[in-house]
């Protein structure tokens, strides 16, 4: 594992750390799967070593050493994380910058003779570092797939951290070893400026590298001492104010300060020649503006000159309009073409490229509530509920049914202690009446209830039989003959109030049927009385005569018989 940069460190510790790193690098990947003490120790050592070597480059790190003993993977990782997060972001920015402009490296480092060597080394180590990063990333993925078991987890996490750190260490060493006193603040401002300018260049298609360089220097002079945030804000404001017209290529250092100060309106909107020519050469970096591209392809310089002048005459509004037109044209073109398969309606597997459905994020509406995942909390809440119920004693058990009485409760005969209201004779009278059956009265209430119950049960049985027999004949209705005594109803009921009196049980016609004017004996006049007596006599006489006739007949018969006998 080549470490080109020199890092200050304690002799024995660095060597131990390097040894550990070497060892880890040399072990086969599958060996990491089994928990092993050596690997774990080596990983810890390596992490410590890397941490302490990176310490000088991260001013904000709160730890002086990586605390490894007695800490678990999570905690170690947190410490490393604290250190590396700001480091990584700054390194990324640096790398981007270097990608754009490799010459910058030389300028930044400001090293005289060592330049070439260092550059060569740095470039070499940069490429090595890149490779290493790639290797490590590949390795990390491999490890991710194979993580199983607690012990394995710890170890592998540590190894991952350590590998990432190695990459970081490399990049850190390259840059910071050469740069010396480069501060974080400064780097960030520059980065932001460049980015903003580039962005605006892309937007509005104008590149002014001269202005850029001048502004850089001005900014440096003005803002070195301020806070980062303020700087950033101010940068942005400046950019916005000037509508990005200042937006230019990434810094070129051969611009002179005079041109920036002399930047006038004519330069942008009416300048003839000066700016236009210089700008022409920067147009090679391309833009969204089709006109510009058209310009580039033309051969005549005059034409270019003229058109570039026209270009400058366009205000921002016109530029925006041009951009809008170009987007409209693009969209119209897209509409004319056939749509992608995701935009078409029903697409079978044959109509789309292979495995393309895996790449697209398909969204289904699920109408079913998903099955519950039984987590610790769910179990805990269930157990709480159960405990509560047990404490209250509130169970939902099956209850024993209330048993119906199988036998009717015995009638408890109470001895009435009051003096009987009826005399003894009356009691005997009632008994006799009951026995003879002249008056049918219910003796006790329970009898009445029994009768009622009997009737109800008969009805019920009738209904049940109706349900259950195929051939069902109902019982014939017997009209019962009952003699109704012509006794007033009052005597039939015991408990009727006195005020109520029903009439006699027999209807008047049943008592007497007769016609005409019926008069009583006392009402008759003398003549009437005589008439009645005469009638009676006549009737009596008629009856007597008949009797006599019957007698004579009878006797004649007898005489004849006797006569027969006599003679």
């Amino acid at each position, binding site marked *: 594992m080549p470490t080109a940069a020199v890092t200050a460190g304690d002799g024995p510790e660095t060597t131990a750390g390097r040894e550990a790193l070497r060892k880890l690098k040399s072990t086969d990947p599958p060996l990491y799967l089994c928990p092993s003490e050596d690997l774990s120790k080596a990983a810890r050592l390596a992490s410590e070593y890397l941490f302490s070597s990176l310490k000088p480059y991260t001013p904000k790190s709160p730890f002086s050493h990586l605390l490894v003993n007695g800490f678990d993977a999570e905690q170690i990782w947190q410490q490393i994380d604290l250190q590396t997060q700001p480091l990584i972001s700054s390194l990324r920015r640096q790398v981007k910058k270097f990608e754009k402009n490799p010459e910058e490296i030389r300028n930044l480092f400001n090293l005289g003779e060592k330049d070439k060597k260092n550059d060569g080394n740095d470039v070499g180590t940069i490429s090595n570092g890149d490779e290493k990063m790639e290797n490590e990333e590949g390795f990390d993925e491999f490890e991710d797939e194979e993580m199983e078991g607690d012990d394995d987890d710890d170890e592998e996490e540590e190894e991952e951290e350590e590998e990432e750190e190695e990459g970081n260490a490399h990049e850190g060493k390259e840059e910071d070893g050469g740069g010396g006193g480069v501060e974080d603040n400064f780097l960030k401002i520059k980065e932001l400026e460049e980015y903003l300018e580039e962005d605006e260049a892309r937007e509005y298609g104008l590149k002014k590298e001269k202005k850029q360089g001048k502004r850089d220097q001005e900014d440096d002079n003005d803002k070195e001492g301020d806070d980062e945030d303020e700087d950033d804000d101010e940068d942005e404001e400046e950019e916005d104010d000037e509508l990005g017209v200042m937006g230019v290529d990434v810094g070129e250092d051969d611009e002179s300060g005079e041109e920036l100060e002399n930047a006038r309106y004519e330069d942008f909107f009416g300048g003839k020649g000066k700016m236009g020519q210089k700008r022409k050469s920067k147009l090679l970096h391309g833009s969204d503006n089709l006109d510009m591209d058209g310009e580039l392809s033309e051969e005549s310089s005059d034409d270019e000159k003229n058109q570039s002048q026209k270009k400058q005459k366009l205000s921002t509004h016109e530029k925006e309009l041009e951009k809008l037109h170009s987007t409209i044209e693009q969209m119209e073109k897209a509409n004319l073409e056939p749509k992608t398969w995701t935009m078409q309606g029903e697409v079978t597997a044959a109509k789309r490229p292979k495995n393309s459905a895996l790449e697209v994020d398909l969204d289904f509406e*699920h109408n079913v509530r998903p099955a519950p995942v039984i987590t610790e909390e769910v179990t805990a809440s269930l157990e709480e509920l159960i405990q509560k119920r047990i404490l209250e004693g509130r169970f939902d058990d099956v209850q024993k049914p209330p048993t119906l009485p199988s036998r009717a409760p015995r009638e408890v005969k109470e001895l009435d202690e009051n003096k009987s209201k009826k005399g003894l004779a009356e009691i005997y009278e009632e008994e006799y009446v009951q026995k003879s059956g002249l008056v049918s009265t219910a003796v006790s209430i329970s009898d009445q209830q029994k009768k009622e119950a009997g009737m109800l049960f008969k009805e019920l049985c009738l209904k049940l039989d109706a349900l259950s027999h195929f051939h069902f004949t109902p019982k014939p209705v017997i009209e019962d003959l009952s003699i109704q005594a012509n006794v007033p109803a009052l005597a039939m009921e015991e408990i009727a109030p006195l005020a109520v009196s029903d009439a006699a049980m027999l209807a008047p016609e049943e008592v007497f049927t007769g016609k005409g004017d019926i008069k009583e004996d006392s009402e008759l006049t003398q003549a009437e009385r005589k008439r009645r007596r005469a009638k009676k006599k006549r009737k009596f006489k008629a009856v007597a005569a008949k009797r006599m006739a019957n007698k004579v007949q009878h006797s004649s018969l007898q005489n004849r018989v006797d006569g027969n006998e006599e003679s």
Partner: protein
Amino acid sequence: MLRRNVRLRREYLYRKNLEGKERLLYEKKRKIKQALEEGKPIPTELRNEEAALRQEIDLEDEYTAVPRSTIDDEYANATERDPKILLTTSRDPSAPLTQFVKELKFVFPNTQRMNRGGQVISEIIETCRAHDFTDVILVHEHRGVPDGLVISHLPFGPTAYFGLLNVVTRHDIKDKKAIGTMPEAYPHLILDNFSTKLGERTANILKHLLPVPKPDTKRIITFANQSDYISFRHHLYEKRGGPKSIELKEIGPRFELRLYQIKLGTMDQDEAQTEWVLRPYMNTSKKRKMIGD
């Protein structure tokens, strides 16, 4: 036997027919009772029938006062005897399924397990009816994981079809000493969050699988409903230490039940009426909670 069955079925239908009228009567009686309690005059529409109804009210006891729905009439006499359950599987059960069924046999008291063999369902049900079983439980599986449970109450009772999820059997937990043996005392039962009518019906079906326990048993079975998924848990509890501390030890299998159908006949009656069936493809099915709240 056949004629008896026919008569019983006809009785059931007749009673179901009367249910509407009974409900009316019940309403009238209730109004009269209310009026009497409050001391208000009886509503005019009931004046004619008031005397007869009042008599009936006096003669009522707690059994007859509440109108019985014919639907739950199936469990009217169930509380008088201890339930007797038969446990079987679908055909050709795998080894994990037989283990699970063995565990279930100990969970519900008074259960018998039977090998399925090649029996037809109607045969099973007829033999059970002949031997006076009260319930039949059938367990289905998918590649070793139990995934279906069918509980059928026997004298033409309702059949409930459940799906099983997240099944954890006692056999999964390798440490035998930690689990220990399963006690066989009659357990207490907790039914939580069965608040709708359908929920009450399901609670009834599940409740009558267990007999009447002694009040001091230490074994407790829980059916807790959460958004239509019923969790089954089986614990042993101990009152240790102070008055408010209960220690729960989980024994027995653990699974979630999901009801998807209730039919009003036994398993072998395919043409029986469905009381309720799950509708998962309805647009509002995500919002509806059919069993609890």
